[in-house]
């Protein structure tokens, strides 16, 4: 009974926003995901980490409603997912920016699709353009920006629709190393400021440990949950202190030991 009481008390602190139940995905020949059960707590950044081809992006796109699962279901705030919804916003690996539209129009695009008036959506977009550090670039076109800046546009677009859950599909994989570090630091600041739920896909162990509250390790195909790790890292420390922190280094090592046997 005492054990139960503790569990109940713990619920408000880590209320589940996204619940994944028994998700399987098979493409005609290949089984990509097998019986995935996961809860994503509100206000946390959870990372899906695993070897390439483990189906982590597939799982993220199933949560987004962009692809359908073969069986099982995803619930967001208790409601089953049948397609994309306003409570979720997606950040694409290849940025998915419209090359013919300015930064301003790209960031405001989610609001434009909702039918919001031009003045209103532009003032919201301007705010998030500033938030990701792109003030002054409103009238530029994507090809005039660096990879890192393009992904900031993608991030601002996802923030602008004010979704509760942000789904990030390897957002930094096409960004060079220096920009990637800066971007990770900015992301942590935004996670702290926006108080949203983040689900983050990456294949970089260091990146996962650096940004995550929880790390879900997926096994090689067919992808299954092999381990859940909660890095105990003092996030109030400076970024450089975190990267030298013993807890950070130990967690990176622990995950590497767990994943090593998947690498040929």
């Amino acid at each position, binding site marked *: 009974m005492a054990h139960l009481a503790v569990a109940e008390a713990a619920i408000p602190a880590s209320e589940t926003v996204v619940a994944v139940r028994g998700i399987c995905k098979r493409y005609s020949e290949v089984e990509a995901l097998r019986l995935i059960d996961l809860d994503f707590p509100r206000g946390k950044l959870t990372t899906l980490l695993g070897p390439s081809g483990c189906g982590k992006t597939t799982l993220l796109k199933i949560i*987004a*409603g*962009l692809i359908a699962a073969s069986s099982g279901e995803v619930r967001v705030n208790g409601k089953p997912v049948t*397609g*994309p*919804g*306003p409570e*979720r*916003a*997606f950040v*694409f690996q*290849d940025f*998915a920016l*419209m*090359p*013919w539209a300015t930064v301003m129009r790209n960031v405001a*695009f*989610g609001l*434009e*699709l*909702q039918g919001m008036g031009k003045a209103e959506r532009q003032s919201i977009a301007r705010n998030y353009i500033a938030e990701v550090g792109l003030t002054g670039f409103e009238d530029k*076109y*994507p*090809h*005039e920006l660096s990879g890192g800046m393009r992904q900031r546009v993608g991030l601002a*677009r996802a923030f602008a*629709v004010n979704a509760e859950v942000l789904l990030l599909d390897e957002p930094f994989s096409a960004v060079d190393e220096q920009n990637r570090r800066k971007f990770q630091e900015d992301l942590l600041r935004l996670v702290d400021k926006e108080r949203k739920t983040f689900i983050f896909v990456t294949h970089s162990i260091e990146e996962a440990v650096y940004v995550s509250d929880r790390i879900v390790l997926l096994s090689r195909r067919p992808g299954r949950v092999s381990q859940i790790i909660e890095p105990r890292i003092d996030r109030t420390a400076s970024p450089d202190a975190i990267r030298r922190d013993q807890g950070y280094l130990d967690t990176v090592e622990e995950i590497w030991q767990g994943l090593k046997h998947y690498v040929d």
Partner: protein
Amino acid sequence: MIAPSRVGGPAPAVHPPEGLGASLGRLASRHPVVWRLSSLVLFFLAWEIAGRVPISYAFPTFSATLVALVSMMADGSLFVAYGSTLQPLVIGIAISGVVGVVLGIVMGLSRMAEWLAAPLFVVLQAAPMAALIPLITFVYGIGLLAKTLAVIMLALPVIVLNGYKAVRNANPSLVAMCRSFQGTKLQQIAKIIVPDASPVIFAGLRLGLAAGFIGVILAELLITPTGIGDLITYHRSVANYAEMYAAVVSIILVSTLTLAALESFETRLLRPEKRRG
């Protein structure tokens, strides 16, 4: 020919220590239009020389052709000819443009429409149209309708096929992006697929327009001697070779300028990002 392009930029030829070649080279690299003009000048020069040799009695010099062109403009015969040539061309291109783009988009969006229509246009594109034009005459006579049909038969397939391929190959990532932000199917088509496909659609329109010019000239040479086709045939028959060449040059000029206008229209309207280098 080179002088006008110097007006805009700082004139490099002013600095005396530099060799003429070096300053010309710098001028050319700063203004690519200089290279293009030079290519034209060289071509006309070669033409002039070939005409003076002469390689054939029926081959006039560039200067003779230019004189003939001016005199045909002065006596108005050129404009009368264009009046009758442009009519089927404009009607045919307008129909091909509207029908072709719409049909191409529909075929790109729907597999059913693709299966229904694509084979027809693939065959039409592959068919030697000049051989079909006498058949048009057989059925539709020698009037405006027959010429318009000739334009459409040449222009439509390439417009349709380009439109359909462009839409079918629209960036899947952008389409997924639109879906993820709950864009409706209509928004997806209007705001993502068509703008994304527009460069290839416009390439199809440019090719269609060029094919339309071929169609109308073929029709005028093969069906009814009117317009520019008649001008060419008539001057050939009376051995006015300079006039004949002038008519040919004029249609090339008109077709090139129309294509360039279409291209700049496209950039202005649909791809604002291309306006900046």
